[in-house]
């Protein structure tokens, strides 16, 4: 870590004067980056970091992002930003734009984990004096993960100049962590005071070390107390986290099952190809992304209606072509739709590929919303919870507020009577099945963001879907929502102590027992329709 000390030194010496003279070190460092040997690259990074050059942090940032290349023809170091299949390049030092080139004209500067770690801590230290507060905060947080006594000295000096409250807080934590090791009891107690209630793992580990290994009775006692306070807070956060995981799993179950709640629940058709309709929705997302490679961020907004139409049409075709001849013969329907599911799988395998396909996550679906140091909610799950609720509400509106919905309910309650009233029951059947299938397609779009898109995607969800619908009560959308959410949450609360495999088995056993007791599910249908 001697070179880190050098960085700090150059920082403390306030660099404006040193540019010109340090350029040699900087240039040498840049030159070394082009070497294929990682040890030489490491020296290069060290040289750049210690050079005090104003561009050092920026250059290392690009290197870390994998945006630093050299041009093969003249060995010039360039920053390349991917633009479709080509790269927009600019001079790495002067930032002068150099046009757009093909990938093969560039050679990437490759990194390994050791280098990435070194670059990160170098940038962190360089960033402590960055004018942007969020960058400074990042720098301090980096140092919190990898404490370094020399960096702490710099932080102490910077603290006086710091104005941003969040950065001050982080800096105080960092200093307090270092102070835990001090000899002076009052200093240690003050540090403990600062750290108590801090959820960062570094604070917890520092306090735990003191509580277990500390020599002074007074300080160990204080550390223990602070730790206990943190533990209580942690437990609350864990509970929230598990609840979120459960709701997210539940929303996936609801999405997968809600289409089935219509075809199976309302129409009474056992559709084993339901999973494949979900799969078709996921593949539609893939094809939409293929068609608009430069607008991945918007692709999902196109994919949702597209998947609804594709799966809906396939559903209508299945209903018109096969199922309508089999109404009232559940066993034959089951076998026929199972056959259709195999045909659809093999169709995708032959037409596209047996391999899984890559569906990209839009940038707004990646990453997580950080609530505090231990609790963060991943965006993709968060959006899918909202999406599931949205689909549910939309479906309720369709069934309750539109003419189609009225007819669907009429036919499902009493077919003969509905026909007598002039409802074209065959047309309603086709539309209902299409609606359920279309919703399955939409579920496929959501699932493509969470799991693998491949020919077997549907198989993984068919059992779960039936489980949710049966548990919730056949023919009841609210039942599906409540059943999906409660199964998800229960699963996630069991998982930590039973493991993922056993949790799933326990859920199935529970449902079997439940169905024994209440064969019509959570929300049984009432009235004469039940008999039909």
């Amino acid at each position, binding site marked *: 870590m001697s070179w880190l000390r050098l960085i700090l030194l150059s920082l403390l010496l306030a660099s404006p004067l040193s540019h010109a003279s340090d350029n040699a070190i900087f240039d040498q460092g840049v030159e070394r980056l082009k070497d294929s040997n990682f040890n030489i690259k490491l020296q290069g990074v060290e040289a750049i970091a210690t050079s005090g050059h104003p561009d050092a942090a920026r250059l290392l940032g690009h290197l870390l992002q994998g945006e630093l290349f050299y041009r093969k023809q003249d060995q010039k170091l360039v920053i390349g930003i991917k633009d479709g299949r080509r790269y927009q390049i600019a001079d790495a030092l002067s930032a002068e734009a150099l046009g757009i080139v093909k990938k093969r004209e560039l050679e990437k500067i490759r990194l390994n*984990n050791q280098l990435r770690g070194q670059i990160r801590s170098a940038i962190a230290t360089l960033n402590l004096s960055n004018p942007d507060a969020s960058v400074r905060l990042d720098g301090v947080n980096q140092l919190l993960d990898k404490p370094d006594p020399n960096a702490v000295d710099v932080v102490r000096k910077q603290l006086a100049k710091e104005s941003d409250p969040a950065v001050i807080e982080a800096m105080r934590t960092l200093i307090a962590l270092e102070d835990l090791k001090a000899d002076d009891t009052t200093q240690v107690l003050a540090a403990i005071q600062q750290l108590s209630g801090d959820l960062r793992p570094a604070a917890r*580990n520092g306090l735990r070390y003191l509580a277990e290994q500390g020599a002074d009775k007074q300080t160990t006692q204080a550390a223990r107390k602070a730790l206990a306070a943190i533990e209580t807070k942690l437990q609350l956060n864990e509970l929230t986290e598990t609840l979120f995981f459960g709701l997210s799993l539940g929303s996936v179950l609801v999405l997968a099952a809600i289409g089935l709640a219509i075809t199976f629940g309302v129409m009474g058709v056992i559709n084993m190809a339901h999973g494949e309709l979900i799969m078709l929705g996921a593949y539609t997302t893939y094809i939409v992304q293929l068609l608009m490679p430069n607008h991945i961020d918007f692709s999902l907004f196109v994919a949702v209606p597209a998947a609804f139409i594709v799966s809906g049409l396939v559903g209508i075709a299945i209903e018109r072509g096969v199922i309508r001849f089999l109404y009232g013969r559940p066993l034959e329907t089951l076998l026929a739709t199972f056959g259709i599911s195999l045909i659809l799988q093999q169709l995708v395998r032959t037409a596209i590929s047996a391999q*899984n396909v890559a569906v990209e996550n839009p940038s707004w679906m990646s990453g997580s919303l950080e609530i505090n140091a231990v609790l963060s909610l*991943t965006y993709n799950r968060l959006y899918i919870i909202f999406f599931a609720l949205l689909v549910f509400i939309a479906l309720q509106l369709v069934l309750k507020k539109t003419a189609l919905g009225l007819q669907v309910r009429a036919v499902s309650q009493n077919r003969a009577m509905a026909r007598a009233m002039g409802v074209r029951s065959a047309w309603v059947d086709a539309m209902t099945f299409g609606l359920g299938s279309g919703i399955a397609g939409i579920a496929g779009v959501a699932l493509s963001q969470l799991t693998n898109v491949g020919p*077997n995607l549907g198989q993984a969800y068919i059992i779960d879907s039936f489980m949710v619908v049966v548990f919730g009560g056949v023919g009841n959308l609210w039942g599906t929502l409540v059943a999906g959410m409660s199964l998800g949450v229960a699963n996630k609360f069991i998982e930590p102590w039973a493991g993922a*495999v056993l949790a799933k088995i326990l859920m199935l056993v529970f449902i079997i027992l439940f169905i024994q007791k209440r064969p019509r599910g959570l929300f049984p249908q009432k009235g004469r329709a039940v008999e039909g």
Partner: protein
Amino acid sequence: MHLFKAIRRLTLTITVSIGLSMSAMVQAADTIKVGILHSLSGTMAISETTLKDTMLMLIDEQNKKGGLLGKKLEPVVVDPASNWPLFAEKARGLLAKDKVAATFGCWTSVSRKSVLPVFEELNGLLFYPVQYEGEESSKNVFYTGAAPNQQAIPAVDYLMNDIGVKRWVLAGTDYVYPRTTNKILEAYLKSKGVKDADIMINYTPFGHSDWQSIVADIKKFGSAGKKTAVVSTINGDANVPFYKELGNQGISAESIPVVAFSVGEEELSGIDTKPLVGHLAAWNYFMSVEADVNEDFIEAWHKFIKNKKRVTNDPMEAHYIGFNMWVKAVEKAGTTDPSAVQQAIIGITVPNLSGGYSAMMPNHHITKPVLIGEIQDDGQFEIVWQTAGMVPGDAWSDFLPGSKDITADWQAPLSCGNYNVKTSKCSGQNY
């Protein structure tokens, strides 16, 4: 004497004509059949289709070189459709009906276990190209993939010594390979002084996609202030959502690296590799290995498959080695008779694709180098570490109490796949 002459002439004509017709028959049957037993449909088609193509390419190349023993090789491709009982059925067909000289195939351990009795009963030869859990050595099977000591143990050594890992998460899919491998690793880690509290073991079902709680647990486990790593035997496509969740929850390869034994170039091709960059994989071959023989192989593969984007991977190399070993053994024995080839193949050495030489050992496993690579954003691996020399495959792990004293040696006079050194007895069971 005319009569005699006439009879003599007649017999001569008959003999000649019989001889001629026989030679015509021989001409028709004058190929050596090679069985290819890989799933071309069903769940395993993802991985196994590539191996079928690899075998077709290798056979095609050998035929261009003039075949084997003056005869052409003829591939017999069957599709066991990822269905374990069907594997046994198809294997029986290959051996009894098609009379193949050798079979190259299987991917999952359960499919290998399913065909094993068939190959032993009909005395066939099976070349098995995938890394597996060990604890097996059959007279009729040649294991060209890695045994645990050729993949898992060196990877753990690397993490322990070079990265300084102190806390271990052993995460796997719930079936025989991860369970056995993790049992071996747990015993190994404990022998190195790692405490129970520093090992976390986790199993998930096949195709698991909801990794939220597990990744959150790993994060918690890794926040105890000691360097933590995940050793992953998670199988196949469950990996993608796993790495995605790691990325989304902000776990980078620098904070908690994941070393995987089932993630290779083929698995990475066609997926979004951003969340995986920097994580590790341990194999005996990477497409990025710098060796002339590898360049040639990749070039030949691209030409054969007519697609420059297709990647090569470790099981393909295993077939390359296995096929060349079989060819050399047949040449040495002068016949394709399985018993003769079984004897001849032990000790055969052929080039592997990483620029060295692999040898078939008496326990029917081979010697291989062990490489560790970091995943790059183009789906390739940057090799960060490799063993100094070749590592011989160990059929029976030294770290499991039940198999410590067992060795396999198919040479006379031992000729046993399950020989207990302590009791000096061959259990007679071949698996």
